């Protein structure tokens, strides 16, 4: 039987560099590119694919033409410079038409208005995301929709102001009654009164105000909206308008009242079960059957409404996930403190659930934003197909096809990719917020 030989180290060994083959570029390549037969094959395959792509795309890109007034001219220039049979990109089209891709037919001298609205959007979102900002900024968030509406569509300033008054009335009535009648009833009465205001007082009051104090800017009609402006207007409006609806639907789906739950589930599953394009066709083809005879409003508005319903179903599912992630204890603590259902939802549950849901909401938005290209199928000027069709109908650019797709695709990529990265960053940041 061996006995243990005691051992004591008195001098500690110093740290040493790893042997040469474990360091340097060669090591890195061996480790990361050629660490085995399979990896070597993969690396070679990857290189081959890269080379193949480059050899096909690069010449075309190198032969780009930036200044020309028509496709024919582009082709001539390319033949001239690079010889017979050379092909190249004709970015001259983009140079001439880029503003239509971004703004559609929005009057050029008014571009500052959508630009301003776009910049202000970030100011409006900021206080929602960053609780460290002064709470007063939320007031700006509240008036932002009206402000944007006015900036984008123009006209009398009183129209959005009076419309906002409807919300103010709703809020006042709600506040006055909520103590006595509870949330659902007072909210219901508020909504009814506000709706009456919008239906009957909106027009006369804003006209009267406009007559008394004329304050207006140039009107821009919806049919002049197009390109990314249209996509962003539809996307942003639909997502923000769908949030409250999504919250209600998510609560409905979690409710223990059978009928409420069934209706919520039915709505959500119906919307999620049909392609967006059929809903768009509903907006353009079927709404005329479902609305009272004679009612007729803007196709963009109709599309926004249907897209909002669509987004609401998806947002509801996202928020449901957020709700599920909340421990039961939060509900119980709220109950034990004597908060009622709506107080608990508003003060305790929703702030937390929404925060958890931010990444999901952002990815719904990205999905929706990409899907706004489908409005081309109902005749709106989306940046991908709608504007491109128009450009191709121009006798100068008839027959161009890669460039518009690459241009619009690149912008989509930048926006969507940027947004997804931002939301990942935000998620990390919000997680450590309180540590």
């Amino acid at each position, binding site marked *: 039987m061996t006995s243990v030989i005691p051992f004591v180290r008195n001098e500690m060994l110093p740290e040493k560099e790893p042997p040469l083959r474990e360091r340097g570029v060669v090591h890195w390549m061996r480790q990361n590119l050629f660490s085995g037969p399979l990896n070597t094959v993969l690396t070679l395959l990857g290189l081959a694919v890269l080379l193949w792509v480059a050899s096909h795309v690069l010449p075309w890109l190198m032969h780009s033409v930036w200044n020309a007034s028509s496709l024919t001219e582009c082709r001539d220039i390319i033949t001239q410079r690079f010889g017979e049979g050379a092909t190249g990109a004709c970015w001259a089209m983009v140079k001439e038409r880029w503003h239509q891709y971004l703004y559609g037919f929005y009057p050029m001298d008014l571009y500052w208005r959508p630009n301003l609205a776009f910049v202000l959007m970030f100011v409006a979102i900021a206080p929602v995301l960053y609780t460290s900002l002064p709470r007063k900024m939320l007031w700006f968030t509240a008036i932002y929709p009206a402000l944007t509406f006015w900036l984008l569509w123009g006209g009398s300033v009183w129209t959005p102001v009076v419309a906002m008054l409807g919300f103010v009335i709703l809020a006042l009535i709600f506040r006055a009654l909520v103590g006595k009648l509870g949330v659902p009833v007072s909210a219901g009465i508020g909504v009814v009164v506000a709706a009456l205001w919008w239906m009957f007082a909106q027009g006369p009051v804003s006209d009267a105000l406009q007559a008394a104090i004329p304050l207006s800017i140039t009107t821009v009609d919806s049919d002049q909206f197009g390109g990314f402006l249209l996509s962003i207007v539809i996307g942003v409006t639909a997502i923000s308008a769908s949030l409250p609806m999504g919250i209600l639907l998510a609560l409905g789906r979690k409710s223990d009242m059978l009928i409420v739950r069934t209706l919520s589930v039915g709505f959500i599953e119906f919307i999620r079960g049909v392609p967006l394009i059929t809903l768009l066709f509903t907006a353009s083809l079927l709404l005329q059957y479902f609305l009272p005879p004679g009612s007729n409003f803007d196709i963009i508005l109709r599309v926004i409404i249907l897209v909002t319903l669509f987004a609401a179903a998806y947002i509801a599912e996202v928020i449901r996930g957020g709700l599920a992630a909340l421990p039961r*204890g939060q509900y119980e603590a709220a109950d034990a*403190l004597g*908060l009622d259902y709506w107080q608990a939802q508003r003060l305790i549950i929703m702030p937390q659930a929404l925060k958890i849901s931010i990444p999901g909401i952002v990815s719904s938005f990205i999905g929706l934003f990409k899907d706004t290209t489908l409005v081309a199928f109902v005749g709106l000027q989306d940046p991908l197909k709608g504007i491109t069709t128009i450009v191709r109908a121009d006798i100068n650019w008839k027959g161009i096809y890669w460039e518009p797709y690459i241009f619009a695709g690149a912008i989509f990529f930048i926006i969507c990719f940027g947004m997804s990265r931002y939301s990942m960053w935000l998620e990390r940041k919000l997680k450590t917020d*309180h540590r």
Partner: protein
Amino acid sequence: MAEQAIDRSKMKVSDEVAIQISNMNKWYGQFHVLRDVNMTVHKGERIVICGPSGSGKSTLIRCINRLEEHQSGDIIVDGTELTNDLKNIDKVRSEVGMVFQHFNLFPHLTILENCTLAPIWVRKIPKREAEETAMHFLRKVKIPEQANKYPGQLSGGQQQRVAIARSLCMKPRIMLFDEPTSALDPEMIKEVLDTMIELAEEGMTMLCVTHEMGFAQAVANRVVFMDKGQIVEQNEPREFFNNPQSERTKAFLSQILGH
């Protein structure tokens, strides 16, 4: 607990009834959790409820502020009967404070906001005033300096003390504790128990589910032992621990104290 001289003289029990539970039964589906529970709690009493896991202790105290609904029998809290009337429920809840095992602080609100939320929204107290009350109670649980931090930044013991302060801010007449220390590390348990002892000394009516027998001996004026949804034995602490009557109590105590 012994280290501290506990002043039992202040802990007066009055004759007024705070909670009256009579013939109360509760089922979860088919499962009979609480069976014919009868219990009278007087103002100022400090009752410790103990018993094996699953014996219905939590369920019992959760029935008292209607986090669970009972199916038969009566519960009268401070003169208000717990029925299906929402108004009564609201009234009872605002008189009864509850502290949970897992604290259940609201992580998105600061400590101060946690404490002022219910006073402002339920009691409709002006914010300024609510904050003053909150600071008062935070001082009492000895963490006024944490008022502007978030729950996530505090240790478990501190969080539980905040939870107690939060309940106190509603100025409840009765406090319920459901295993307030069992999710805590040993070092932190003492902080929380000290706070509870202080509360007891001020004459608060308390029902506390706990297995801290030291606490029971030092503070409780009555120990209730439950098993299988029934109250098996109750007695004042000294008698209860030294001279348990029922076999089940004996078995349970030997297990608990044997540790």
